[in-house]
């Protein structure tokens, strides 16, 4: 595994973008509140104050203004590591409903601003014309990651919907491209999100590839854990695995105490990403993470 050191507590982004796995209505209400970037920054500052060292940030259209604000705030900019999660899948799913997959990709590339194209030094027209899938992936990655420039980024995560599809289709070359593009172009490690942890460990071993940093669900009730709690616990015991655990509270279903006494028992869990929208909630949750660790 890469020598990346992950902050123990990473603030999740779901509330900022209206994602709520327990209640769509609550999600929509939060999205409205956090449409004001000042409200997002207040929560981020409060999270850092309460002990968070990182921020997960999907490449949602709204993340652009959050990144802008982080660049301006030098204290947060230097005390907070940002973990990009790409792509924001819903953005492409909705547009693919209209245009089909190929046109979504070519239009996204074609619509990039001239400044971005020049800034990235890419021959976008050639990429669009040749339509080589890996070329397009590389170009899309660079375009999506542009918003994070000058921020403190050590690991980028690939969305589980894409990663799990690539694993199912047995396509190691795309993971290799993803890893090498991040390493060469951005100097960051390649993280992978998955809903199938044991499959990931098996596939990377079959492919003879080093295990990436993994973002995956770890929780006491097995919510979104596949193919079974037992298999995942076995995979979590792998000595070379470094996991950033998500869904630890099972979308608010578990109390922090019961959640973290379970999660902290796994030495492969190096980091925990947790969503929180109020200071009081954050203090309680983050406190439980550190309390049950000792």
């Amino acid at each position: 595994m890469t020598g990346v050191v992950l902050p123990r507590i990473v603030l999740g982004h779901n509330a900022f973008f209206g994602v709520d796995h327990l209640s769509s209505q609550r999600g929509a209400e939060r999205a409205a509140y956090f449409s004001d970037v000042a409200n997002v920054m207040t929560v981020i500052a409060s999270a850092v104050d309460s002990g968070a060292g990182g921020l997960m940030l999907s490449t949602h259209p709204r993340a652009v203004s959050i990144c802008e604000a982080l660049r301006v705030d030098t204290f947060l900019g230097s005390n907070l590591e940002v973990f990009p999660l790409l792509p924001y899948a819903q953005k492409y799913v909705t547009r693919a409903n209209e245009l089909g997959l190929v046109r979504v990709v070519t239009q996204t590339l074609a619509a990039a601003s001239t400044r971005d194209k020049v800034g990235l030094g890419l021959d976008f027209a050639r990429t669009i014309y040749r339509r080589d899938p890996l070329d397009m992936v590389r170009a899309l990655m660079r375009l999506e990651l542009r918003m994070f420039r000058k921020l403190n980024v050590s690991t980028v995560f690939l969305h589980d919907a894409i990663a799990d599809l690539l694993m199912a289709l047995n396509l190691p070359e795309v993971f290799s491209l993803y890893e090498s593009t991040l390493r060469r172009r951005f100097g960051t490690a390649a993280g992978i999100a998955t809903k199938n942890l044991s499959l990931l460990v098996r596939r990377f071993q079959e492919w003879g590839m080093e295990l990436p940093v993994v973002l995956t669900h770890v929780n006491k009730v097995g919510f979104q854990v596949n193919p079974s709690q037992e298999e995942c616990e076995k995979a979590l015991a792998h000595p070379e695995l470094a996991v950033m655990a998500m869904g630890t509270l099972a979308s608010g279903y578990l109390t922090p105490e019961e959640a973290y006494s379970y999660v902290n028992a796994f030495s492969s869990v190096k980091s925990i990403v947790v969503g929180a929208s109020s200071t009081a909630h954050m203090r309680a949750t983050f406190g439980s993470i550190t309390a049950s660790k000792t």
Partner: protein
Amino acid sequence: MTGLRGAVVGFGKLGLLHAGLANGLPNSRLAAVVESSAVIQRAVRQYFPDVNVFSRVEELIEARQSDYVIVATPTGSHVSIAEKLVEASIPVLIEKPLSLNAQEAQPLVAALNRNWVPNMVGYMGRYIDTFHKAAQLLHRSVLGKIQMVRSSMYVEQLLKPGEGWRYDPATSGGGVLITQNSHVIDKLLWMFGDITGVLGNTSQLVSRLVEDHVHAYLEFSSGAVGFIDASWSARHFRTPTISIHAQGTNGTLDVDDDEVRLFLDNSIGETSSGWTTWRKPDLYRPVPLDIGGTQYTFQMIDFLEAVTNRSDLDSNVASGLKTQLVIDAVYESARQGGTRVDVGTLVS
């Protein structure tokens, strides 16, 4: 290599997802792809050397390299493709909706009558944990006699006129009613039984050729009444959001993607009286492989099992046709200015 050989016709967003499951689940592998786009053909050839690529479904049939086929093309081509596969005795999973309208699906129904093969229509919403639980409860008649059913489906997909086949009725069959809300109609028929009459209204908020909003009053053969309300131009709904409420002589049931809430006057078996709520973590069922939602996996597992055992499925061409007949009746009622229309009973 062993296992069932799967083929996918239409290698777009859903085709890719099905291909992933066809390749990743035990006892199955992706053997062939049928796709008309040269760009996608080239990519498949380059990255899947073991997968055969064809331009037309006839070539796939001739090559005899598939034990089952998934049809994930635009709606307007489902029937003609599936009909050829059925004639060739190849089990078929057809993406929803089944067809542009019920009449258009007749040749496929006739082909299945002549030469039955396992067949499925991809109403995967039945496999979402909360809806699965709600249907189990309803099929046990916990609510007593159903009196009233309310349903809604909202998503913020279209705030200005859209591009592409989904917004052209010649290839899509219509707007939000036949596209996302066909899932709701499928669920209502599955949970509450046949719908015999409708009064419908459609409106265009942003589109020129298809409806962006639909509202219809429904009469069920059981005597229950209800309504659908749906829009794909509904602000603040990040993803398609379906809610169903039912009231019966013994209580009420509410189900959406997040939870099931049941209220019963009297206990039924082990289900107690008063309020009971099941949230997603209560109902979660793990799967061997999750790509973009466990509902797709459960659907594929059921389909593969039916292919192996040559057995029938709950969501099949016959049930897909019933959904289509209700959709047709709502469109017809809307054309007549909202008058009551009988739901047809096309029999071949």
